[in-house]
C-alpha cells in the first residue's frame, strides 16, 4: 500500500550518520546483563512483601483484624496504618493518599495492610487471612455522578479537586461576528503506561535504624522526603536509589511500593522486596486522565479565527497526585497556543471519583487538549471551505507572540517552517489511492506544541556534582533516573562536549538521593538541566584542573585522557592529576530551571514544536485502522544523541497511536473491566508503522538554550493527525478515542448506507 517515496527510519536525509553512536548501556542491555530494581532477588534474608487492597471501590471500614495473618508460619510482619510512625499520607501536590486506609476506601487500589513473609506464596496466603469489615457506600463512577447534588464528598474539600479558567477577549460577542462556527464533543481514554517492568524494588535496612531503597522511581530525592515523613525518620536515615528501570512515562513519578516495603523492612530488620504483578499495577497504578472536552471555534469569512471556547472535565480518580498540574497544562494547550486567536475561553474541572487514580503520563494533559484543538481546526477548515493547512497558515502565531496567558516564551522557530515541511511530506503523494479495493487509504496532519520544565512558577531547580576520584576517574552525578529515555547517553555525550573528556574517562552516577538533587525526571526537563549544569561546571573544572597542574598549565585544557595542549596532545593524565592534587576537586552546582524574564512565570518558557503527518489504511469490511507511515517534523533544539532522539519521537508516536486506536482501561461503577495485557492491548511489531523524523535544529535565540527535552514531543500531535487521516480515507470524522473498529465501521455505514 506504499505508493510514495518515503524512506523510513531516517533522522533527516543524512541519518545523522556521523553523529550516530551507541548508548553506553546498549551492549549490557542487549546481552541481558543490565540489572533492574525487580532483579534484586539475591539479598540474604530477603522477605517478600504483598499489599492487601480494597475489594470495594467505596466503603466505610468498620474493623480490621490481622491476628490470623500474623500467626501463619513464615509470616514475619503484618502492618496496617496503626504501625505507621509518621504521616500516613503521601502525594506530590497534596498528601491526600493514605499509605494504609483507616476509615474509608475510595477505590479498588486502596491499601489496607501489608505482609512480609518468607515466600511470595505465604505472603499471598497471609493476605487472605486478614479480616476487614466494610459498609459499602454509593460509588461515584464518573465525574457527573461525583458533581451531582447530594453526592458524598470523597475528600473534605468536596469532589471538585480543582478548576481552571483561562480567558481573554469576549468569546460570546466574537462568536456572533463569526461567519463559520463548529462545535465538537471529544473524549479521550484512560490510558495505561504499560512500562514493561511493573512497579517494584527492595527496601534494605541498615543496622542503625536507616533504610536504603533500590527501586524503580522518577526522583530519588522527592521519594526520600515523602518516605522520611511517612516513616518518621530523619532525611539522612533514608536513601533512595532509583536504579535503571524498565520504563516510567510518568507512571512511577508518585510513590508506589516504597512505603509498604520500607515499613516492613523496618519492622523485620530484613530486606523486603515488593513487585506489583500486572494486575496490581493496573488497579493501583496511575493512569492518563480520561477527559471529556466540548469545544466551539469560529472564524470570519476570510478564515481568521475569532473565537475559541473549550470546556474540559477530567476524571482524576480517588486521589490528587499530579492532577492539578495536569489540569493546568491541559488548560494551556486547550487555549490553542499555536494560533493567534483574539477571544478565548477555556474552563476545566478536575473531579474526584471512585475510579483509578490519574496523574502524570507523557504529554501531561497537553495531548488530550491538542487532539480537540487540532480536530476543531480541521472541522472549521471544512466548514469554511479552506484546506486545513491554509486555515492554520492564516492563524499561526509568530515566534514573538506571547503565550496564551500573555507570557514570554522561547519558541524554537517559526511554526510556519513545520507546516511547510509537513505539506512537503512524500506521504501526500497518491494519498487516497489504494491498490487494494478492501483498504481505503488517507493522509492527515496536525501540529503540536510542548514545553519543558514543571512550569507555572512551581519550584523547579536542579543540580549536579563533578568530582575527580582517587583513581583519576571523572565522576559526574545527577539525580535523574535512567528509565529508558537515554538520559545516560545524553549526559555522556554532553559531558564529553563540555568537559572535553572521552567516554572512557567518565563514571556517570544517576538517581541516588545521597548525590545531587537534579529535580524530578519528568516534564522533559533533564536534558535542559544537564546542559545548564555542564555549562556552569565547564570553567570551574578547567580552573580546578589547571590549579592542580600548577605553573605552565594556562594553555592546557581538559581533554581526552587528561589535560591536553591546544592541539590535543595529552600532557597530564587524569590519574596523574588525581595523585598530584593536594585536594581533589569536588564541584557542585544548583540552579533554577529556566523560566524566562516574566516576574510571574506562567505556562512553560522553553517551547518545542512538532508536526506529525500520518498515512493510514482503513479496512472497509471491519473498520480496522492500520497506520502505515508517520512523518514527523520536530523543532526542539540540538540533537544530542541521535538514536535516543529518534527513539523518543518514534516511541512516543506509537504510544500515542495506541491511545488513538487501541488503549483504554474501561471502568464501570468503580470496577476495572480488565486487569492485564490479554485485554489491554498495546501496539505490537505487527502494528508498528514506518516512521521518519526531520529535525529543525537551528533555534531562535541561538545559544541561550540550545537543547530542549523531547521525551513528550512525539505524542503531542499524533491523535489528531490519525483522526484527520481516517477522515481523509473514509469521509468520517471521529471524536472519541480510542477509535474502535466497530465504532468506525458503524460511522462509515451511517455515512454511506
Amino acid at each position, binding site marked *: 500500500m506504499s505508493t510514495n517515496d518515503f524512506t*523510513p*527510519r531516517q533522522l533527516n536525509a543524512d541519518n545523522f550518520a556521523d553523529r*550516530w553512536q*551507541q*548508548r553506553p*548501556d*546498549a*551492549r549490557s*542491555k*542487549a*546481552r*541481558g*546483563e*543490565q*540489572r*533492574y530494581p*525487580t*532483579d534484586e*532477588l*539475591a539479598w540474604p534474608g530477603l522477605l517478600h512483601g504483598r499489599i492487601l487492597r480494597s475489594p470495594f471501590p467505596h466503603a466505610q471500614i468498620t474493623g480490621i483484624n490481622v491476628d490470623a495473618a500474623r500467626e501463619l508460619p513464615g509470616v514475619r510482619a503484618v502492618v496496617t496504618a496503626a504501625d505507621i510512625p509518621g504521616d500516613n499520607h503521601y502525594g506530590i501536590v497534596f498528601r491526600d493518599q493514605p499509605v494504609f486506609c483507616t476509615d474509608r476506601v475510595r477505590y479498588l487500589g486502596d491499601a489496607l495492610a501489608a505482609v512480609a513473609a518468607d515466600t511470595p506464596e505465604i505472603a499471598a496466603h497471609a493476605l487472605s487471612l486478614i479480616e476487614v469489615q466494610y459498609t459499602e457506600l454509593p460509588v461515584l463512577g464518573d465525574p457527573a455522578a461525583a458533581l451531582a447534588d447530594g453526592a458524598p464528598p470523597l475528600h473534605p474539600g468536596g469532589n471538585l479537586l480543582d478548576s481552571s479558567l483561562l480567558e481573554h477577549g469576549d468569546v460570546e460577542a466574537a462568536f456572533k461576528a463569526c461567519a463559520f462556527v463548529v462545535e465538537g464533543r471529544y473524549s479521550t481514554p484512560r490510558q495505561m*503506561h*504499560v*512500562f*514493561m*517492568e*511493573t512497579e517494584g524494588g527492595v527496601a534494605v535496612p541498615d543496622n542503625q535504624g536507616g533504610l536504603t531503597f533500590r527501586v524503580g522511581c522518577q526522583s530519588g530525592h522527592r521519594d526520600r522526603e515523602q518516605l522520611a515523613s511517612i516513616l518518621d525518620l530523619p532525611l539522612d536515615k533514608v536513601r533512595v536509589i532509583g536504579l*535503571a*528501570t*524498565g*520504563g516510567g*512515562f510518568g507512571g512511577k513519578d508518585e510513590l508506589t511500593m516504597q512505603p509498604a516495603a520500607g515499613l516492613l523492612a523496618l519492622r523485620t530488620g530484613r530486606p523486603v522486596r515488593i*513487585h506489583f*504483578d*500486572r494486575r496490581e499495577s493496573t488497579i493501583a497504578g496511575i493512569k492518563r486522565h480520561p477527559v471529556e472536552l466540548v469545544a466551539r471555534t469560529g472564524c470570519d469569512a476570510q478564515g481568521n479565527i475569532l473565537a475559541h471556547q473549550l470546556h474540559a472535565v477530567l476524571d482524576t480518580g480517588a486521589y490528587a497526585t499530579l492532577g492539578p498540574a495536569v489540569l493546568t497544562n491541559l488548560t494551556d494547550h486547550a487555549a490553542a497556543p499555536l494560533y493567534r486567536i483574539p477571544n478565548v475561553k477555556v474552563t476545566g474541572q478536575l473531579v474526584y471519583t471512585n475510579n483509578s487514580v490519574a496523574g502524570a503520563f507523557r504529554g501531561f494533559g497537553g495531548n488530550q487538549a491538542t487532539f480537540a484543538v487540532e480536530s476543531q481546526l480541521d472541522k472549521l477548515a471544512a466548514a469554511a471551505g479552506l484546506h486545513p493547512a491554509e486555515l492554520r497558515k492564516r492563524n499561526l502565531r509568530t515566534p514573538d507572540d506571547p503565550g496564551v496567558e500573555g507570557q514570554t516564551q522561547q519558541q524554537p522557530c517559526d511554526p510556519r517552517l513545520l507546516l511547510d515541511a509537513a505539506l512537503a511530506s512524500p506521504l501526500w503523494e497518491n494519498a487516497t489511492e489504494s491498490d487494494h479495493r478492501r483498504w481505503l487509504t488517507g493522509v492527515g496532519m496536525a501540529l503540536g506544541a510542548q514545553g519543558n520544565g514543571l512550569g507555572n512558577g512551581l519550584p523547579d531547580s536542579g543540580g549536579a556534582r563533578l568530582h575527580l576520584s582517587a583513581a583519576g576517574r571523572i565522576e559526574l552525578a545527577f539525580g535523574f533516573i535512567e*528509565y*529508558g*529515555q*537515554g538520559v545516560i547517553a545524553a549526559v555522556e555525550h554532553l559531558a564529553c562536549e563540555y568537559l572535553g573528556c572521552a567516554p572512557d574517562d567518565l563514571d556517570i552516577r544517576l538517581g541516588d538521593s545521597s548525590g545531587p538533587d537534579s529535580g524530578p525526571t519528568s516534564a522533559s526537563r533533564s536534558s535542559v538541566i544537564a546542559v545548564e549544569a555542564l555549562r556552569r561546571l565547564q570553567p570551574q573544572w578547567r580552573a580546578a584542573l589547571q590549579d592542580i597542574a600548577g605553573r605552565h598549565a594556562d594553555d592546557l585544557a581538559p581533554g581526552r585522557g587528561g589535560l591536553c595542549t591546544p592541539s590535543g596532545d595529552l600532557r597530564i593524565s587524569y590519574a596523574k592529576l588525581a595523585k598530584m592534587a593536594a585536594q581533589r576537586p569536588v564541584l557542585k552546582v544548583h540552579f533554577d530551571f529556566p523560566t524566562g524574564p516574566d516576574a510571574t512565570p506562567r505556562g512553560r518558557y522553553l517551547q518545542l514544536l512538532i508536526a506529525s503527518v500520518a498515512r493510514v489504511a482503513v479496512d472497509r469490511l471491519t473498520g480496522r485502522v492500520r497506520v502505515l507511515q508517520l512523518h514527523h517534523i520536530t523543532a526542539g533544539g540540538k540533537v544530542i544523541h*541521535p*538514536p*535516543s532522539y*529518534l*527513539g523518543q519521537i*518514534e*516511541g*512516543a*508516536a*506509537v*504510544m500515542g497511536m495506541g491511545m488513538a486506536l487501541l488503549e483504554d482501561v474501561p471502568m464501570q461503577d468503580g470496577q476495572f473491566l480488565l486487569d*492485564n*495485557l*490479554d485485554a489491554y492491548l*498495546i*501496539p*505490537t*511489531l*505487527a502494528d*508498528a508503522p*514506518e*516512521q521518519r523524523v526531520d529535525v529543525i535544529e537551528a533555534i531562535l535565540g541561538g545559544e541561550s538554550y540550545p537543547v530542549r527535552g523531547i521525551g513528550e514531543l512525539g505524542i503531542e500531535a499524533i491523535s489528531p493527525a490519525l483522526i484527520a487521516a481516517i477522515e481523509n480515507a473514509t469521509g468520517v470524522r471521529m471524536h472519541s478515542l480510542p477509535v474502535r473498529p466497530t465504532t468506525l465501521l458503524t460511522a462509515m455505514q451511517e455515512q454511506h448506507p
Partner: protein
Amino acid sequence: MSEPRLTLQFTVNGSEQIIEVSPTRRLLDILRSDLNLTGPKEGCSIGRCGACSVLVDGQSTPACLLLACQLQGRSVQTIEGLRDEPVFERVSAALVNAGALQCGYCTPGIASTLTAALRNNPTATAQELEQALYGNLCRCTGYTGLRQAVAELART
C-alpha cells in the same frame, strides 16, 4: 498438609540440574529466584508480553507459563546461556547498532526469540523474523529500531 514435592531433573544452560520443587512452581521463578538467572523478566505473568521468553528445547517460550511438572528431562536456555553463541552475537550487535532498545527490559526476551528463530532457520526472511517477534511487546521504541535490526539480520 504436606506440600507435594517433585524431583525435577532438567538442563539449564547446558548444565544438569536436579532440584526439589513444588510441581506447580513456575519455570520463571525457578530461573529467577532459585537459580539466580535474572535475564528473563516478568512483565504480565500470562504469556502475553514475551519479556520472560526463554528457549525450551530450542523453541522460544514464555517461562511464566511452564510449571516444574512440565520440565522433566527438558533443556532450557536463558539469555545467560546464549551469550557465547555466534548467532546471539549477531543478534545483540544488530540490536545495538540499530538503536533498537531503550529501557531494555523487553530486550532479553527479544534477543532470545530472535536467536531461536535464526538458529532454526538461518536463511529466515525479515518477515519471518518479524513474525517470530509478534509476541514480544516493547513500550519504549515504537519497534522501528527493532525492524531495522531484523532487516540487517535477514540480509547478513
